[in-house]
């Protein structure tokens, strides 16, 4: 099977992508959304013409010196400002709006407003990190359980371990892409992004399990004295069309959502598209080949050289 044969090439492709993601995260970091840090995000439109951005900036600086203003144009061609600043109270909100309207000169219309206190932000961050950790732990336990009857030549917890390596791969790549996008286009990593990552985790494991499941079945069928690498190779080729087709239908749904779904879910669907593409790649080209690599490492000391695959009940 060519996937197994050329696995080092596929490892390198992933290695390069993961390294690039790490470098990007290290250099540019990610821009956390206000739902993690606490803060205020205001989206305002100006039906009677948008005032000069620098004018507003100087007015706002009085209230919050580190407030940032970004101009944006909606799909309907409406010109808006998106303001990000420290958390404000209801009382402060009035003065912020008079600043945005340059003292009633250009009336600002509020389209979207959220102000989140730092306490709630910290809580959201903590919950997000916990849910990622819990999902990963639950998945390892589940895979170890589901594959408990497979002990030879690779014990069941190693299937879980391999799935985790694939998962980390799938989470790092979209984070890296968002780190680049946050530097160049102001994309933020918010609770929605974390939700997208968790879905990617779910999808990627879903995909990886289908291949593992085939390996499990082929081991049980005891295909003679075939080498483990050959069994894995066959399993990959048997599930290959399915993996591609399922990912394709899911990606179709997501790309359509990205194009037509409206601004609320735009970044969310982008994160999912990147993550699911990475997840499909990893379940075919990383997960199962890694099983072979682990088996090869384990059998190096074996004098017979050829791995046996016994199915132990």
């Amino acid at each position, binding site marked *: 099977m060519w996937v197994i044969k050329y696995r080092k090439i596929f490892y390198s492709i992933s290695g390069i992508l993961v390294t690039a993601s790490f470098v990007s995260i290290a250099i540019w970091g990610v821009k956390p959304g206000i739902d993690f840090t606490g803060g205020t995000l205001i989206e305002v439109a100006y039906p009677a013409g948008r005032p000069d951005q620098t004018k507003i900036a100087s007015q706002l600086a009085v209230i919050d010196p580190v407030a940032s203003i970004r101009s944006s144009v909606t799909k309907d061609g409406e010109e808006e400002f998106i303001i990000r600043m420290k958390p404000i109270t209801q009382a402060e909100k009035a003065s912020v709006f008079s600043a945005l309207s340059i003292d009633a000169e250009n009336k600002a219309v509020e389209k979207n407003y959220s102000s989140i206190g730092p306490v709630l932000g910290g809580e959201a961050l903590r919950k997000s990190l916990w849910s990622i950790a819990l999902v990963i732990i639950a998945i390892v336990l589940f895979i170890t359980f589901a594959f408990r009857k497979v002990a030879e030549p690779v014990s069941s917890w190693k299937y879980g371990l391999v799935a985790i390596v694939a998962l980390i791969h799938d989470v790092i790549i979209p984070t890296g892409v968002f780190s680049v996008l946050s530097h160049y286009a102001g994309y933020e990593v918010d609770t929605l992004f974390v939700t997208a990552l968790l879905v990617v985790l779910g999808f990627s494991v879903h995909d990886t399990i289908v291949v593992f499941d085939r390996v499990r079945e082929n081991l049980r069928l005891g295909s003679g004295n075939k080498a483990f690498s050959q069994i894995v190779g066959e399993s990959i080729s048997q599930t290959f069309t399915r993996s591609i087709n399922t990912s394709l239908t899911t990606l179709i749904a997501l790309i359509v959502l990205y194009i037509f779904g409206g601004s609320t879910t735009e970044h*969310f669907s982008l994160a999912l598209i990147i993550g699911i593409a990475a997840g499909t790649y990893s379940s075919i080209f990383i997960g199962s080949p890694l099983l072979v690599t682990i088996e090869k490492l384990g059998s190096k000391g074996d004098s017979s050289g050829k791995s046996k695959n016994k199915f132990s009940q």
Partner: protein
Amino acid sequence: MIKHRARAVMLLIIAAAIGYFVYISQNPGSTHQFRLGLDLSGGTHLVYQADVSKLASEDIKDSMSSLRDVVERRVNMFGVSEPLVQTEQAAALSSKESAYKLIVELPGVTDVDEAVRSIGATPSLEFKLLTADQMRSFQASSTSISSSTELEAAYLALFKPTGLTGSMVAKAALEFNNTTNQPVVGLTFTSEGRDLFSKITKDNIGNYLGIFLDGKDISVPVIRDQISDGKGQISGTFTLDEAKKLVRDLNYGALPVPITLISTQTIGPSLGEASVKGGLKAGVIAFIIIAIFLIIWYRLPGVVAVVALGCYIALNLAIFKIGVSPALFIIILFFGVLSIFWHRGFLAGIPISYVLLALVPGGLSPVTLTATGIAGFILSIGMAVDANILIFERMREELARGASIWDAMHQGFDRAWLSIRDSNTSSIITGIILYEFGSSAVITGFALVFVVGVVVSMFTAITASRLFLYAVAPSRASKFTLFLVNNGFFRRKSSI
């Protein structure tokens, strides 16, 4: 064969009926319209942090529920349709200071400032005047107005504010009426209040002084004399507890638990509308493209998959409408598994438990759809195809091995089941963790839709897809029928 066809037709009729229900219940006035979250309908989401540090731990629960009641009363006065007021107590992973929260959702309200003021205010105790003449003419005309709510509104509108409010009350105390022994609330005004009260009572002898608490009239005594000592009394038809509560509210501020606003989110209605329209459009387009792909690649089974996907969508949307609690998922899954491995009769457990769950208050409230929920649903359409694809790929392998069409179908379902079960279980685990730890309605809304989607897709794959395929499968193997049930365009080596 006939048996399968009859069953398939029956299933189609049921699915069509469900689809019709989904469609017809969107008509205005129906009680089963989709429930849209704030991000879609527009409105305001407020989160308050409740300070329970001064309360004894055994009182916290009661205080929080009375806090909820007070705030709900005030919000209702604000005239919002279907407001949501709920408390969140010691949720998973919240820090100590934010352990107790009050969440207020006001659909359609964009004047947040006003709403926030009225929620956080001290109890609005107001004294308003009504002249004796007005009272007489009102009583004379009252017979001409039939509706009692209109009557009350007209009555309340007659009162004129005096400027005397609860903020001018220095002290409130529980007292008892000497003759009736009824509990009354004694008020001592501040010096400013005393002067105003003295002036009002002096100028309006014979008129009525209405005492309003949170906008509701609790007593409307007649002013008999000027009162200049700064002392007043509220004598409504209080129970002892109500009087005590009013005293406490007036002395210690409005709410049983002090609250601070820690998050405000306002979504304009236009943005929500765009999300709904976009989501709907995306769903339809995605479905069409996926359907075309499935039919071209998988031919006859592809058509079956598309029909099954239609059933999936109808069933899913119906569940959003009638509501499903997480408990019901577990029950459906449990009985579903039992019926597959044990006996079909266990399927009867699903409607029975549904009826039982319907008796639990709130157990079957509709799924609130958010923008992310719609995204989750569209994602699930893509993923729901997976079980079908797994089965069809398996069928093709069996055909390649030389199995008959009929055997290939049976084997295909049997062999694919383990993959379907294990892979979907991991997705459900992810969904449940998301639901439990989701920090906002945005995430839990997504997680709920996602889990419903995965469970329903498993169900439709093993029931609808299987039945339809059996019903339409050609019984004789010819070159043409084999082409129909086979798939793909590349000849693949049977072993590599």
